[in-house]
């Protein structure tokens, strides 16, 4: 077990190292002079040359790569061309809304989707089952920008229940900032609950047909115990997988939702950075998101181990 975790963490570092290399190469492999690309067509040759020196682009590529990796290992991902701030600072400032948005919407999706998914599987073919599936289908097909706009229009503007957009001013308290995340969390949660609901239902349906469920019933326990203790634990692995994947997707930035609600999160930052050709920020975001993915995958795999003792790596 400990050896497995150690091996996985080592593997994690290898993946992150590869991501670093790819992030490094992307900028260097882009056609033309990266400095000129970053500055755009209006830059003078002097400006370009200055940037080349600043970025170290005038040094041999091996030296550049080595410097880049050593700096990254020390937590230095370069300086944003647009913000004129270290990339790590820029990313850190945008991480809070994204992480909490991901967390809230996941919790919302889980609270809605798992109980309904379990019940739908248990009462397969019933009216509730069929309405749950069709509602989930509908929820998954409505684009989140539309739901977002409708929520802003009716729940925020007309009824004034929630703030419509933004993330509070610079002096907004933590609670206030979280208040801004309620509507976007629900919008994202609705989309993700559809997926989680379908996975939960399918997985429970499989398990409820198993012989050991019949054994459980023959022991004389009530249906809640049969379903929640004997079936749900067995159905958990596919559900955990889809939750992990959903969460990983969410932390990489829910671009559309962040845009609609004007939340200064990672998704918004990356889109702006691409438009501004702020390569160090793009590089940094790539590295951070990839690392989070790897980390979430590791956590998911470790969760399998705790649920199912048959899982051996």
């Amino acid at each position, binding site marked *: 077990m400990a050896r497995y975790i150690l091996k996985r963490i080592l593997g994690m570092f290898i993946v992150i190292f590869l991501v670093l290399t790819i992030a490094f190469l992307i900028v260097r492999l882009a056609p033309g002079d990266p400095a000129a690309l970053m500055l755009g067509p209006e830059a003078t040759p002097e400006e370009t040359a200055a940037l080349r020196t600043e970025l170290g682009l005038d040094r041999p590529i091996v030296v550049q790569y080595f410097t880049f990796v050593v700096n990254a290992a020390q937590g230095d991902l370069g300086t944003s061309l647009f913000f004129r701030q270290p990339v790590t600072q820029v990313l850190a400032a945008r991480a809070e809304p994204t992480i909490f948005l991901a967390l809230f919407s996941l919790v919302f999706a889980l609270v809605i989707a798992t109980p309904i998914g379990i019940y739908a599987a248990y009462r397969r073919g019933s009216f509730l089952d069929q309405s749950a599936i069709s509602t989930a289908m509908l929820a998954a097909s409505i684009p989140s920008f539309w739901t977002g706009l409708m929520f802003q229009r009716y729940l925020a503007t007309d009824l004034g229940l929630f703030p419509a957009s933004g993330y509070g001013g610079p002096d907004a308290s933590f609670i206030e900032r979280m208040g801004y995340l309620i509507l976007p969390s629900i919008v994202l949660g609705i989309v993700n609950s559809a997926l989680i609901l379908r996975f939960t239902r399918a997985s429970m349906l499989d398990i409820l047909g198993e*012989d050991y469920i019949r054994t*459980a*019933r*023959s022991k*004389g326990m*009530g249906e809640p115990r049969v379903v929640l203790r004997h079936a749900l634990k*067995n159905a958990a692995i596919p559900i955990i997988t889809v939750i992990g994947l959903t969460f990983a997707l969410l932390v990489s930035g829910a671009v559309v939702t962040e845009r609609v609600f004007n939340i200064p999160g990672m998704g918004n930052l990356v889109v702006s950075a691409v438009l501004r050709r702020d390569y160090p920020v793009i590089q940094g975001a790539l590295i951070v998101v990839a690392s989070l993915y790897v980390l979430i995958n590791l956590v998911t795999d470790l969760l399998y181990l705790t649920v199912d*003792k048959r899982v051996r790596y």
Partner: protein
Amino acid sequence: MNEPVLDVRNLRVAFRARRSSVTALRDVSFTLHPGRTLALVGESGSGKSVSSLAIMGLLPPNGAVTGGAIHYRAVDGSVSDLTKASKSEMRARRGAEIAMIFQEPMSSLNPLFTIGDQIGEMLLLHTDLDARQRRQRVLEMLELVEIPAAASRIDNYPHELSGGMRQRVMIALAMVCNPALLIADEPTTALDVTIQAQILDLMRRLQKELGMSILFITHDMGVVAEMADDVAVMYAGAIVEQAGASELFARPSHPYTRGLLHSIPMPGRPEGERLVPIPGTVPPLHAMPEGCAFAPRCGLADEACREPVSLSDFAPNHRVACFHAGREVTHV
């Protein structure tokens, strides 16, 4: 003979299909006396498993008892009809008084709980024992079913045990609350022959020590010969022949029972005798012939067999549902 533990009277079970309903059990009656073993014998689809599920109150959602009664005599002597029992009454009985062993030991145990957990859960549901007492009792049960090194096995997961060991665990699970009635649904079918003999030995020994009655469901006449005191042969949802085991083997009288016995090798048969398969297959439930359901496959069938036939006395304690009971097949 003392009062029966189980007295099934004219039990009818039907399953809802898309638009129609099919009858899976047609007026099934049998009795099981304390400390005895009744074997329900038949091919797949004959209704033997449905009978056991009806007794347990575990018919699938689309199945229901549509007639008859299942009189069960509890340990305290009170008799009640299980077909009329409430859900909570049935839950209290299941496991505690009426326990069941299933065919597939590989898949009948929950893979995510230790065997100690799963046996102990029975005690948790039906007794007031605390955790330490439960563990102690589980350990005793594991020793009783002859699981070697029980103390170290108790925390194993099912996948760490062999098929035979798992079936022993299933037996321990079924017996832990000391049930009056054990329903064993093909408990040895999935096991290889040496293990099968060990499990049958174990069940016989436990029956002698603990005194429960066993309803033994099987398609294997060899197992019937080993285990049963009484036998009921089922065909297409009805009992076609019922007798004490020795009587049945000595004088099989329904053409179907004879067919079953002729189709398997048995010790004591003349050397060189050919095994004779029963031609055809069991008719599907929605296309039952009128009259005797076995008639289309029967060498003795004639006009009379188109009339409905029911069990009638053929000899003392020997009932057969056949107009030609006891007659030899002269042509096949």
